[in-house]
């Protein structure tokens, strides 16, 4: 069982900055927490009722009030001030490098459709191709994602990259980040979006840049733009869904008007 | 905060310096302000986001008709306040007269609004997106009916309350020393008028 308060290893450029703020806050609040709770316990023991002992008659102390108004104020302002830059860097695409790779991610119950620009690195051109629940990225190069949703609100969550952004129907929200380490990671949905919310997840593969280019060329070359999920994918989903819940099919029936859940079951 | 000051205190604290009923009504009206604000807020958000859904004033909506309706509601405010002025000086006859007048004016406001609704919906101006057929877009219809509808509901409730007040008036329940019922009725009624003044402007004229 993991009682740790450390965050998992970050693998994006601003990931570590976010974490450092987290650790600062952890330190500040940790100290405050200990001080308050210790004081509480000490007082309880020290001033517990004893015969003949009488409480001090006091209505307060304005100096103290001033102190514990100002000190916390300064502390929180420091926290806010530190957070500001990192926040804007992480959320404003204007901070994304110019050469960022454009992608389009469209969420729908209960899947992530990723549109890749293909070799020409331009979206909405002939060589674009779409993959379902698979996000492939080059390492060391920023990606700029146009995030959209077809039905309800989903949330594009990449834990290891410290990226989270709701995908809102009717809006196209820009998201950017830069992977710093090749490997396999997870893409999850963090906003309740219906009965399949819990299994609306995809895989993230960060390639070395050369490997990524070759992956793009080979994927781009094969005809069917919208490709059917790889066996691994669906198998994964169904087995686990089933194991989690044998009765799922019946259960899902009355909501089978949902194109996606049919597809999931197919 | 000296001892003696409090020792001499034999009466309740002053509070708001107005009697409970009136204070209560005012407090209630404040929450009504927030309710209509939320609807108006939604309206403004949607209109800013999709101006193309709205038609020019007086193209879909019939401003002259509603203008006349506004006129009647304002008149009903005068009659209401006259009813209050009457009982404030113990004039029972005046109270009854002016209450009846207010009821008639209020009722006809509702009547005209119903007529307007029927007319508009026949012209395809409906709250339902799927069946919206008039100029502009569905948001125009749905916001219009929501806002005017809830105001209309308030007027209707007001008329019923007025009838109730009138009955009490005819039973001679009010007097120069006990006119609270009439006064808070008035407060509610004027508030409804006030809301309409705002709605008329932003829904019909802007």
């Amino acid at each position: 069982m993991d009682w740790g308060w450390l965050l998992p290893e970050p693998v994006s450029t601003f990931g570590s900055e976010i974490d450092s703020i987290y650790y600062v806050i952890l330190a500040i609040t940790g100290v405050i927490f200990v001080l308050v709770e210790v004081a509480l316990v000490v007082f309880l023991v020290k001033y517990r009722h004893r015969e003949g002992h009488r409480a001090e008659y006091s209505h307060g102390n304005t100096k103290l009030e001033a102190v514990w108004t100002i000190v916390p104020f300064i502390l929180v302002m420091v926290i806010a001030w530190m957070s500001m830059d990192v926040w804007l860097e992480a959320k404003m695409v204007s901070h994304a490098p110019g050469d960022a790779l454009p992608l389009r991610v469209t969420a729908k119950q209960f899947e992530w459709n990723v549109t890749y620009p293909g070799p020409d690195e331009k979206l909405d051109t002939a060589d674009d191709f779409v993959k379902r629940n698979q996000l492939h990225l080059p390492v060391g190069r920023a990606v700029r994602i146009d995030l959209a949703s077809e039905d309800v609100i989903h949330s594009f969550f990449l834990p290891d990259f410290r990226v989270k952004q709701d995908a809102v129907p009717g809006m196209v929200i820009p998201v950017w980040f830069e992977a710093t380490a090749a490997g396999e990671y997870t893409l999850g949905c963090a906003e309740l979006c219906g009965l399949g919310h819990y299994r609306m997840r995809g895989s993230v593969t960060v390639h070395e840049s050369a490997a990524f280019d070759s992956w793009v060329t080979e994927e781009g070359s094969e005809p069917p733009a919208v490709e059917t999920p790889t066996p691994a994918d669906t198998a994964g989903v169904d087995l686990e869904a089933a194991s989690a819940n044998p009765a799922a099919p019946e259960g899902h029936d009355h909501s089978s008007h949902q194109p996606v859940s049919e597809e999931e079951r197919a | 905060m000296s001892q003696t000051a409090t020792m001499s205190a034999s009466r309740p604290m002053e509070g708001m310096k107005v009697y409970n009923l009136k204070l209560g009504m005012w407090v209630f009206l404040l929450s009504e302000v927030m309710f209509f604000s939320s609807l108006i807020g939604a309206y403004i958000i949607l209109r800013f986001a999709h101006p193309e859904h709205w038609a020019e004033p007086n193209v879909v909506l019939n401003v002259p008709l509603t203008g006349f309706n506004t006129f009647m509601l304002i008149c009903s405010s005068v009659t209401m306040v006259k009813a209050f002025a009457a009982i404030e000086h113990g004039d029972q006859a005046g109270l009854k007269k002016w209450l009846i007048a207010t009821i008639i004016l209020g009722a006809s406001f509702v009547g005209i609004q119903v007529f307007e609704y029927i007319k508009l919906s026949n012209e395809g101006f409906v709250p339902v997106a799927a069946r919206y057929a008039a100029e502009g877009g569905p948001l125009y219809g749905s916001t219009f009916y929501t806002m005017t509808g809830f105001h209309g509901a308030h007027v209707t409730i007001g008329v019923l309350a007025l009838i109730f007040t009138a009955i009490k008036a005819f039973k001679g329940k009010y007097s120069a020393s006990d006119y609270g019922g009439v006064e808070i009725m008035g407060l509610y009624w004027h508030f409804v008028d006030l809301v309409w003044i705002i709605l008329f402007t932003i829904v019909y004229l802007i």
Partner: protein
Amino acid sequence: MADESVSEEAVERKRPNYYLVWVYLLILTVAEVVVAFMSNLPETWLILLLLFLAVWKAALVAMYYMHLKFEPPRLVLMVLAPIPFAILITFTVVVMEIR
């Protein structure tokens, strides 16, 4: 805050000329319609002007028909207090639009 020396008996309350207020309201209403249709102001100014007229009318009703003008100041204060919140929620649009 509360001072104890307030007399029991009713304070005789001043009343406005209700008909005069009525006339005011009608004039303003007509003015609104005229402005809305017969003026060629730029849109924003038109809207601002109309809103101003509307608020003016509302204020008249509140002050004279609802007698706020003659109520104890503390009641007036209480009534005005939530207006900022009302404006805040009414103009969440600002919140939503600047992006």
